[in-house]
Every structure is written in structure tokens, then in C-alpha cells.
């Protein structure tokens, strides 16, 4: 995902994501001429490839993210959320409140949904972690992603990856048939835009098809 974005950026066809991340890497240069600097910024080396000694007190951890084995060196304070976003460069998982109150950071660990902001990455040695990127991709969407598109289950989209990760986990949980049952089990995912009726409709359609 990231390497594709970087290719796009160097070719001049940059996405919002590659633009923003290149902007961060380009730093001062970007301030002088943001558009040009971003478009020609050198690809940013993932932090994961940096030698361990560059992070003081870093510890080794092996994570399995979206089926891929990753050997990382991280500060033990790193939340799973920050590790996914900053170290592994999987930015589909969002940081909202960072205190387990909003659900934007929801990922699956060993098939169960959790708030990735309230757990340390080092606690997940050997665990199977799935993020929104591992669920589906443009052209091969997970049925829940497709249903959110069909029912317009979002407005700004910031909470959407967390909503979808929760909704997919809900399919395997004990949940009654009614909309109220779905709302109860989705209450840990806040949508500030208020797309709730469409989110519930998207989830119910997938449940009825299953």
C-alpha cells in the first residue's frame, strides 16, 4: 500500500495520503514549496527498518499483521495503534481519542475486536493482527466494506475503518436479530457525523445475507 503510494508520489500522481506523509518527511523543504517538494520527496524509509539502537530502550517484537511476519524494534511504551500507524505504516487504523472511548482504532487480534490504543504492541508477540487493510482492498472489498459503500454508512469517513472492523467481528459474536441488538454491540464506535442509521442498515444487510 505504502510503496504503491510512494511510486505514485514520485511519478507526480500523489494521493492525499502520500502527499501528507511525504510532507512530514520533507519537513522544512516542504514549507518552502510544499507541492513541488512533496511530489519529489525521496521515499521515506519505514521506521521498522531502522537499526534497533536508534530508539533508546527499544525492545524486539514479532507481530503477524494481515498475514505478514514483521520483526520490529519498538519503544515498549508504543501502543499497538501507534505501532501499526507509525512503525508499520498502516494508517487505515485511525487514532481518535487514544483512550478507548471512540472505537476508531478497532482492530482484530486473534479474530476478536479490541481497541488498539489501550494495548501495548509488545504484548502481542505472536498474535494474529488484522487491520482494515487486511480485510479487503479496492477491487476486492470485504462484503461489509461493500455494504458500507452501498448504504452510505459514513460521512467524513474517519470512524469508518473502526466501524467496519467492529461490524465484521460482530458477525461472529452472540447478537440478537434486531436493529437495537446491533446498536448495543456497536456502541463502542462513535460516529461524530451521525451516520448511525446507515451503518446499522449496512450491517443488517450483511447479516441477512450470511
Amino acid at each position, binding site marked *: 500500500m505504502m510503496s504503491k503510494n510512494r511510486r505514485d508520489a514520485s511519478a507526480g500522481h500523489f494521493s492525499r495520503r502520500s502527499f501528507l506523509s511525504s510532507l512530514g518527511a520533507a519537513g522544512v523543504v516542504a514549507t518552502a514549496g510544499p507541492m513541488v517538494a512533496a511530489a519529489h520527496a525521496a521515499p521515506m524509509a519505514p521506521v521498522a527498518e531502522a537499526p534497533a539502537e536508534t530508539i533508546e*530502550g527499544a*525492545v524486539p517484537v514479532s507481530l503477524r499483521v494481515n498475514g505478514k511476519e514483521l520483526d520490529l524494534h519498538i519503544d*515498549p*511504551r508504543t*501502543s499497538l495503534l501507534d505501532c501499526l500507524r507509525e512503525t508499520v505504516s498502516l494508517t487505515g487504523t485511525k487514532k481518535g481519542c*487514544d*483512550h*478507548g472511548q471512540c*472505537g476508531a482504532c*478497532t482492530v482484530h487480534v486473534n479474530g*476478536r*475486536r*479490541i*481497541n488498539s490504543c*489501550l*494495548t*501495548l504492541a*509488545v*504484548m502481542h*508477540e505472536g498474535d494474529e493482527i488484522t487491520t482494515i487493510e487486511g480485510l479487503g482492498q479496492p477491487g476486492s472489498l470485504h462484503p461489509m466494506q461493500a455494504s458500507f459503500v452501498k448504504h452510505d454508512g459514513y460521512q467524513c469517513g474517519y470512524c469508518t475503518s473502526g466501524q467496519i472492523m*467492529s461490524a465484521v*467481528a*460482530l458477525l461472529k*459474536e*452472540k447478537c440478537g436479530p434486531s436493529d437495537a441488538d446491533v*446498536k*448495543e*454491540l*456497536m*456502541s*463502542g*464506535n462513535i460516529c461524530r457525523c451521525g451516520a448511525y442509521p446507515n451503518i446499522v442498515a449496512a450491517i443488517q444487510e450483511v447479516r441477512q445475507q450470511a
Partner: protein
Amino acid sequence: METFTYTRATGVPMAIEAAAQSQAKFIAGGTTLLDLMKLNVERPSQLVDINRLPLDQVEKLPDGRLRIGATVRNSDLAHHPAVESDYSVLSQALLSGASAQLRNMATTGGNLLQRTRCMYFRNEAMACNKRAPGSGCAAIEGDNRTLAILGTSKDCIATNPSDMNVALTALEATIHIQGARGERNVAIGDFFLVPGSTPQRENVLEPGDLITYVTLPAPKAGSKQIYLKLRDRASYEFALSSAAIVAVVSNGKLDFVRVALGGVATKPWRSLEAEKVLHGKAADEKVFREAAEAALHSAQPQSENGFKVQLAKRCITHALTLATA
């Protein structure tokens, strides 16, 4: 967040040894601890990860008791067949708490140690005797709408936020502890401490003590169990008032009853006063109202939480009605 060393424990003795140094904390689900570490309210110098300890099973013991491992997740406990059928008040309480994601993380031992949601405790700029002993209590003259009316002191009015603990109190659970000086068992009624002049001490655990199991007595035959939770939102909100009831009615009379309250007290609150009124009496609304009056008799409301007195009475009365219907 301050730095810490991280140790993953593979056995109970190793965990206890690793946590022997001061400022060490055990971490399981992390849902309370990491939240408070990000706020600089908790500042452990060492974290001992107990997630890989063999304490993740729910087992029926030969004598009929149920033994729950300290690292059993709230969601797994709530949906365990034995809990659903024999201890439904616990299942109801667990499912009324937090969100599905948090219930997949939070553990039995961790929930016993859940810290208060008092906003003055959570903000290091504020006076709080629980966080910084001797600094005062900003809540007493402050925004105290959600805070406690039972078990308070002039030094602390923080509410115990747990739903699970209220159900465990009504079920008369026992907490099993292992520490440097060996093993001991503590009845849940003796486990939690009211704040008094030492609100920083919330329970009887000593440094390095590890909760290993919680046991529940053999199921009470013929009992009906209810957890009723009243709150500002329909879901994903802490209780303003809650009641856990275990009741056995025969020939219209209350043969057995346990009443525990949440959201209104500084610790999970067993109301022996309500139980005394109810025992042996007819299961009717007049008696329930008398019990509710008795339960709130010693309530000490603050400037903004006076409504909780009436709310808690109605919560008890309604929960008793549901449990005896």
C-alpha cells in the same frame, strides 16, 4: 508516558518475583492501566505482563463452586454457559459495562481493580487525595454529579465504577491472592476498602500481590437474579445507580435475598440494611420501598448528586420487582 521496563511472565511465581520491586504493576487487559498511564496518573517503573499465565479458564469445582481465572476476559465470562445459567446477574452486569471491544480486553482481576472515573482523579492538575495523598479533594466543592453518596469521607467521594464488582458482591465471591508471603483468600466484602482518611488504599492487596482466581459459591437453587443499571445513555456509559439482586421467593415470601449497589458508593456496596428489611417478608412493593429507604438511610449527597438518593431507591425497588416477578 514515563518509561518502564517490560517483562512477560510465563508462570505465577515468576510474575510475583518480577513484581516484587516497588512501582511495579501487573498488566493484563490494560484498559484501565494504560489509560491512566497516558494521563500520568499511573507511573509504574516496571510492567509485568500476566496475559500468558495459565489463569484464563472458568472451571466448575467438584464442590459446586465456580472458579474464574484472573485473566478470563469479560466477554468470555459473560457468555460462559455456567455463568449464563447459574450466575446470570454476573453475565448481565458484565454485558452492561463498557463496549464489546473493551470487554474483549478487560479481565476479571483487572476489573476488580478498576479505578474511579472521578475527573479530579484523572487530571493531574487537580487536588485529589486518592492520586496525591494530602493534596485535598477538589470534587467535594466541584463537579460531583456522578460521584458517591455512600461510603464517602471528608477526603474522598470517588465512585467505584465497576458493574462486575457489584454482581460479584451480590454473589458473595471470594478473591484468591498469591503474593510473596504465600496464598490467601479474601471475601469480596472484605476486599474493598472505603476511603476514610486513606483513599489511596482501595483494597487489601499488598505490593506484589497477584489476584489469581475469583470463586463463586455453589449456585443458589431457585434464585432469580437481576442487574439493573441506570445511566445517562442507553449504552456504553457508567452507572449513575445500579442494583444487583439475588432472590429466592417461596410461598410469596423472600426466603433469601442479596442486594448490592453500584454507581452510588465508594466501593461495591452490599446493603445489609435492605436485606434485613426484606428477609422473610412478602415480596411486594411496599416492602421493597422500605428496603430502599433503609439502603439509602446513611446517604450523604453532595452539591450536585442529591438526585442519586431518589434514583437509587427507585433502582432498588424496580430491581426487586423484576427479581421477584
